[in-house]
């Protein structure tokens, strides 16, 4: 590691369009990335971390502009370079990868061509067609994908998220960059895939001596990959230093709070409470195969989503269903609610054969199981007042409007909002506040079972913590049974009494949280646990050695 910085951002400010809630998206930010090191830029949503990285390549969204400061890369000030100079740098000496592998590749072009485009753009006529092809194959092999020639001919939709992210990395590596900007490249991936991609970035960085500016919101990822850390909040840098210093002995209060909010490390205060004894909901032998047909002569596609799953829920119990995307956990939750009809199986719910119900009886039972969805922005009707969203449910079940409105106001207060929120619209609230509204809407019907489908996954860690606490409190107050669907084992470890691990539609392991995390029986569970980012620092949840935090 030489001391000469490769990239040096000096007092950078990026102005927001006039009339916003603050003047700058990024204010007075200074940081440096040296050759052969990974600097993690970490912060919550709106902290300006992504804007800072985009400013380096001058790929800022329309309306945003560098207002002051310098961005030095070698001998060039990127803040003032002309468009031609920037184009020569983009994808050449400086390249960038993005968060969403599903949308970051052109859906209509073969991935090999997309890698070739990066090579041709910079090497131009210096390379022959077959040399470009050979280089494409070499790059695909370098990012660890099997059978490169066949892969080069694939279209993005034929690849998994992890494979697409590897293709993105191959594009970024095409011209041997000195600096790689990585904007949350693993956030949209499953944990096991995330682990592989982090290892890949680490390996490529070390092999090529690159400098990497790695943006993330996850301190676990920071612990796994960073050499140095820069913490941002509201557009400003609040703390920076070597990874061990910042993670083990943070100086800034905000950094301390953020690290403390990382789920999975706290004592499990949300568990260990008295459970109901009689099962409230017993599901047996649930199966679901999705079929689709695209034409008269075409074969029917059969995708088994859930296979022979059994599940029991008791009052005041939280069962977390964990698994990666495509494991069938959401389908399972929707079958429990009868939003998706199981092909076979039985559900005894509150003493009734739930799957046999029809019409009025079914409708009467429906209020007893409610759901909170992942995306609080999509889950509320933007043209309906939030109070109405809460009061409508009880009204359709016959509660007089006056009572329903009074109850909605009480619930708003209960979930931590003002009663005056009743008259306002969803867009006036933040993500966390909207999730509180969604929770109020779900519990307004006084359900016996609450399904939380990735209910905290879209939220910042500090908000996540508060929502989890709220859910735990409501569970006690209302004797709710909670079915908690999540891909995040750290979250599951905090709130769940029991863990159900799913893979490819089947339950591979289930048991008390303590025993599943402490002594996992199935190889897949162990694989999932080992993929949790930041284990080196935070330890495995519920392991005795987990207490080395904050010495």
């Amino acid at each position, binding site marked *: 590691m030489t001391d000469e910085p490769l990239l040096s951002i000096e007092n950078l400010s990026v102005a927001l369009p006039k009339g916003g809630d603050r003047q700058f998206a990024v204010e007075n930010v200074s940081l440096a990335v040296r050759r052969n090191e990974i600097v993690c830029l970490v912060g919550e949503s709106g902290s300006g971390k992504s804007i800072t990285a985009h400013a380096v390549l001058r790929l800022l969204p329309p309306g945003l502009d560098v207002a002051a400061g310098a961005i030095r890369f070698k001998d060039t000030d990127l803040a003032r370079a002309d468009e031609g100079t920037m184009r020569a740098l983009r994808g050449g000496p400086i390249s960038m990868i993005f968060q969403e592998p599903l949308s*970051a590749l052109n859906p209509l072009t073969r991935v090999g061509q997309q890698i070739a485009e990066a090579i041709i753009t910079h090497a131009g006529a210096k390379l022959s067609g077959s040399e470009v092809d050979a280089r494409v194959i070499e790059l695909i092999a370098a990012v660890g994908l099997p059978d490169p020639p066949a892969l080069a001919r694939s279209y993005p939709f034929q690849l998994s998220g992890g494979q697409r992210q590897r293709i993105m990395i191959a594009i970024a590596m095409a011209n041997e960059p000195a600096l790689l900007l990585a904007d949350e490249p693993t956030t949209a991936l499953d944990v096991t895939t995330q682990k592989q991609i982090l290892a890949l970035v680490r390996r490529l960085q070390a092999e090529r001596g690159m400098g990497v500016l790695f943006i993330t919101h996850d301190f676990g990822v920071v612990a796994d990959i960073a050499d140095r850390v820069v913490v941002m909040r509201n557009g400003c840098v609040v703390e920076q230093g070597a990874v061990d210093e910042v993670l083990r002995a943070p100086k800034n209060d905000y950094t301390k709070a953020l690290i403390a909010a990382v789920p999975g490390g706290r004592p499990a205060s949300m568990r260990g409470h008295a459970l109901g004894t009689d099962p409230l909901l017993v599901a047996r032998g649930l199966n679901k195969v999705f079929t689709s047909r*695209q034409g008269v002569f075409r074969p029917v596609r059969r995708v088994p989503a859930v296979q022979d799953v059994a599940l029991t829920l008791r009052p005041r119990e939280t069962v977390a269903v964990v698994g990666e995307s495509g494991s069938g956990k959401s389908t399972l939750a929707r079958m429990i609610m009868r939003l998706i009809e199981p092909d076979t199986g039985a559900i005894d719910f509150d003493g009734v054969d739930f799957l046999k119900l029809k019409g009025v009886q079914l409708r009467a039972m429906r209020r007893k199981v409610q759901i909170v969805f992942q995306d609080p922005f999509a889950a509320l009707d933007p043209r309906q007042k939030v109070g109405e969203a809460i009061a409508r449910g009880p009204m359709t079940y016959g509660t007089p409007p006056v009572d329903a409105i009074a109850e909605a106001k009480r619930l708003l207060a209960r979930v931590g909002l003002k009663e005056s929120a009743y008259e306002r619209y969803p867009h006036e609230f933040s993500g966390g506040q909207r999730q509180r509204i969604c929770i109020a809407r779900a519990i307004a019907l006084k359900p016996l079972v609450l399904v939380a489908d990735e209910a905290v996954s879209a939220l910042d860690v500090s908000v996540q913590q508060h929502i989890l606490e709220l859910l735990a409190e409501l569970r006690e107050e209302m004797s709710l049974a909670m079915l908690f669907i999540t891909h995040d084992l750290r979250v599951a470890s905090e709130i769940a009494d029991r863990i159900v691990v799913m893979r490819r539609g089947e339950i591979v392991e289930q048991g008390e949280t303590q025993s599943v995390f402490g002594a996992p029986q199935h190889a897949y569970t162990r694989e999932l646990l080992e993929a949790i980012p930041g284990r080196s620092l935070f330890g495995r949840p519920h392991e005795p050695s987990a207490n080395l935090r904050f010495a």
Partner: protein
Amino acid sequence: MSVVAITRYGGRLSAYVLGAASGAVKIIGVILVIATFNFILVHAAPGDPAQVIAGQSGAADETLLRQIRSAYGLDQPYLVQLASSLKKTLTLDLGYSYRQQRTVLSLLLERLPATLLLTGTAFILSLVFGTALGTIAGTRAGKWSDTFFTIVSLLLYALPVFWLGLMLVLLFSVQLNWLPPFGYVTVGVEMTTWQRIADIAWHMVLPTLSLAAVYLAIYARLMRSSIIEVKQQDFIKTARAKGVTESRIVMHHLLRNAILPVITVAGMQAGGVVGGAVVVETVFAWPGLGRLIYDAVLQRDYPVMQGIFLIMSIVVIGLNLLTEAVYRMVDPRISVRSVT
């Protein structure tokens, strides 16, 4: 993965074959449905079906009516009649126009080329220029050129086709005397083949413009909003981060992705273009199917109406299948996914 990928590619050809086969099934199915509608039409029309077929002129004498009854089997049970009329349709025996004293098929075949020429040209022109204008407007969203094109396309969209046609005639034929006001070809002049082609093209300008205008406006507006949407997608940012030039981003990444919804709508509008031809052909005395429909409706010439009904449906379905095939070519997700 690799084996899967290879078999997927091997499957792409068979996807085309399957697509063509299901297209053929669709066409035959629709022809049968239309033929059934045609059958019902004659029987639902007021009066004796034989009178209806003869053209309700009152001029048909008993001999002719008897002839018609036995030719159409009108004395047979309904199901037998239906079966024989379906059979006739499938063998392209579309009946006889007693009004025009000719077989319906020969009438249609005589008029079809003129309509296909007019609608086809208008369709292609509106697509090409519509997407081009939409692309310019979309890539410059918010600038004055965008505002200008948006206003122009809104104006074109709002103008009734017949009014636009008449105004074009007034301006270019009556005032400026640049272009012929009506007709398909100059009558009574000896011409070589090339002169004839040029003459037809000259006659086509005004009707094509009138017909194309409204669709051009639709495609331009659609393309504009599609461009604006695609422009914000991540893969455009990826291309920019590769250092690709703006013009290449537009040509290679933006256009192909943005045109997909335009293709879908164009497929649905194809029928509308054929319908719009009725008005334009009437205004410009263009000797196509549109004029034939107009005349047939006025004269209650049911066999001709039935024939046109059938042939227009076939044209519309054909255009739909064509757009489906184009979509398949542009978007690999359709053809490849359908066999996996």
